[in-house]
């Protein structure tokens, strides 16, 4: 795939991820679970897509640009550290989990969500210079299981439709997919 196409695809996916994370701000998840730092993580569908179909390098590029732009549009430096640390840990966890033969996209997504929250807590600990914040982690992990399954389900539905529609990137991607869906 030539450079221009790759750039356009990356830009499109970054925009999609930014749109999703902006959209989910309007979902009042905090009313259901009153914990700071809780979100659905719909932008993770884009990262999952990149991990599965485009390879980890493209996923990393999209993630970095997304976090940078996201904090420019709103949030600032603090938000940037939160999203980049959470995002990088989640990406690393998902790239590793993707290699485990006994995990489906659901398991990969749950691992990513859990890692994301570990990252957030690490930033909070660094900012406050207080280990007390670790006490939040178990609650965030429990929520991550639920949100991870949810974004996993959304991704599975999207990917199935994409593969069924035989979109170009699902058949001749650099990194991964060969064969049928399970």
């Amino acid at each position, binding site marked *: 795939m030539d450079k221009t196409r790759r750039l356009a695809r990356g830009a499109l996916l970054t925009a999609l991820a930014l749109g999703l994370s902006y959209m989910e701000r309007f979902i009042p998840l905090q009313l259901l679970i009153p914990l700071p730092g809780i979100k659905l993580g719909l932008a993770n569908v884009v990262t999952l897509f990149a991990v599965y179909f485009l390879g980890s390098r493209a996923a990393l590029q999209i993630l970095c640009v997304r976090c940078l732009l996201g904090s420019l549009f709103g949030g600032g430096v603090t938000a940037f550290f939160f999203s980049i640390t959470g995002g990088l840990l989640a990406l690393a966890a998902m790239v590793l989990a993707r290699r485990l033969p006994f995990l489906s996209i659901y*398991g990969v997504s749950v691992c990513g969500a859990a890692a994301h929250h570990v990252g957030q807590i690490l930033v909070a600990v660094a900012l406050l210079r207080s280990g007390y914040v670790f006490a939040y982690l178990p609650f965030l992990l429990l929520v991550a299981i639920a949100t991870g399954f949810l974004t996993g389900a959304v991704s599975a539905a999207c990917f199935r439709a994409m593969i069924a529609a035989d979109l170009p990137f699902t058949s001749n991607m650099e990194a991964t997919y060969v064969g049928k869906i399970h």
Partner: protein
Amino acid sequence: MRNDKHTQPRLTLCRGDILAAALIFLAAVALLVYFGTGARGNAATVQVWQDGTLQGEYPLAVDREFVVAGRYHNTVQIQNGRVCILDADCPGQDCVKSGWHKDTGRSIVCLPNRLELRLVGGAAEPEIDGVTG
């Protein structure tokens, strides 16, 4: 890596996923046990930590209201042995939403202002919340 079975996307829920979720669940429970849950004693004091340093300590027995300044401002209220952040000019307002707290070991956090209100002390005594007569 062509025709490698492991590189095919698995899109249906399988046993491994449940196992991964169970492991995370167990980790969460282990952390909960480690940090202590369940009934706690009422705290005696609230410590005001900002940027990792102790700014002051206030007994919960005395009602008061004060403002912690920094990057932002948090109005802290102590009333009837409980503490809350009444008002703040930080962007997220998570600290205000977290409401009233009185149990020892809990903390209220305002990350934008790097503020942590830590509830300490008073756990040693057995809980006597119902002495009547």
